[in-house]
């Protein structure tokens, strides 16, 4: 058990190191001649107008909230799916009921206009 997570840990370190080392090496190999014009923000080729850190639209929040609801639902459904083979018809129907309640939530959000890109 611990061996497996040791492997995952090692793999994560290697997965971070490979691109990291490559980027570092390329930085050593590449030329370094910065100047004022180069350092300006490229954006779309024209000089930047105004503030670059934009305020974002509240609509993104609404999507994030709906996502959160369904993500948590999925976490609850995974144990149900793993135990599916041992479950009786009653427990399967109960899972369906659980999903239907949340589907009701989706219908509510839909009717409220939370899923419209305004």
């Amino acid at each position, binding site marked *: 058990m611990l061996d497996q997570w040791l492997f*995952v840990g090692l793999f994560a370190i*290697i997965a971070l190191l490979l691109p990291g080392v*490559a980027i570092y090496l390329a930085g050593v190999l590449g030329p370094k001649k910065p100047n004022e014009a180069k350092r300006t923000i490229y954006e779309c080729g024209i000089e930047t107008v*105004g503030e670059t850190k934009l305020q974002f639209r509240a609509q*993104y929040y609404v*999507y994030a909230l709906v996502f959160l609801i369904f*993500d948590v639902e999925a976490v609850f459904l995974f144990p149900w799916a793993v135990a599916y083979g041992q*479950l009786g018809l009653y427990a399967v129907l109960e899972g369906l009921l659980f999903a239907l309640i949340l589907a009701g939530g989706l219908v509510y959000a839909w009717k409220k206009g939370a899923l419209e890109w305004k």
Partner: protein
Amino acid sequence: MPNFWQDPIGFIAAWLHSVLTGWGLPTEVVDFLLALLGAGVIALGAMLFVIFLIWYERKLIGRIQDRLGPNRVGPYGIFQPFADMLKIFTKEYITPEGADLVPYNLAPILAVAAVLLIWAVIPFAHNIVGVDLPVGLLFVIAAGGFGELAIMLAGWGSNNKYALLGGFRAVAMLISYEVPMIFTMLVPAMMANSLNLNDIVRAQTVPFLLTAPLAAIIFFITQVAEAARSPFDVVEADSELVAGFMTEYAGLKFGMFYVAEFLHAFTISMLFSVLFLAGWRGPGAEQFPLLGVLYLFIKTFVVYFIVILLRGSLPRFRIDQTLDLSWKVLTPLSLVAVFLNALVLKALVEAGLGGDSLGAQLLRAVILLAANVGVIWLSGQLMGQATLRERPVVSGPRPLAVSRPVVEQQE
């Protein structure tokens, strides 16, 4: 000890283990060294494989668009990616003024690492797997989340309006597609009664593509969206956002995003093959694990070909269409897919068809296939009735911070 000719990789692993313990090293250290070696080989192999993937995709896209594709450097242009790599390694890094350096530099590394991490749990054959994690499926979902984080960091760190808009879109789109993705992942878990990817492969006497085609199709679409590939590449839409979140990157930092994109496209094909096309299963794969690797790669390349074909033939969705597709079509349909399979399968088991014999399995597969095809046909009919919503035309000046361009409607 496995026979070398049957299972060379298992043989080498067992041989290394015996040699290292023979030197008097404690077992823990040997296990650690072998884990390090295995992780290094898989990660490095995946990174080097990208060189081939880039050539393959450019060549194919070229043929789809009636061009030749790379054809100058080496036979069929196969050395083109090496030349590109040499060039990109000697390019200067240009860091834009006012960039937030920590997220800016972390993003390309995280983007690659997030995709590479998935390779840790992919079963290439029944005994060739980085780590046979009991919660492999959850691990895949978790690792995928880092990729989204990388795009957000890149968008925020670049000090560029367009990059930031790409980051915003990534937040909205990638999390939206994660919902149907997770729901459809429930189907293989449910039918195999396990979250372990190897168990899921073993459970597919009949590939899940045939027993749960609805879930398979939804999973495929969401995976293409998760990789932010055309037709869902609103994150980097080059005609709207310059290059989206990677606009301000130069040299190999840009190259790493490029690598991550190609590797991600291949990884999702591999994941699809494992979850729905029976992964390494095929004749003789149990005796000869390398044959299993071959089967997996053949299946993966077929799926990858379809992914490239989609990129070459479909126009980009608008951001609101992308989100509508996820929330109003795929999310309800994925719930239907999960419970359709759950209820039909349970009903069949209750009716006494739950046996493990090949005949019972085939019969269940046929009934599940029929039920799925019926639902796919029905949802197609329902979608055909829905009309495309006209976008309201907004006139007058708009503030800069709006993520969609003002479109003048032409009569």
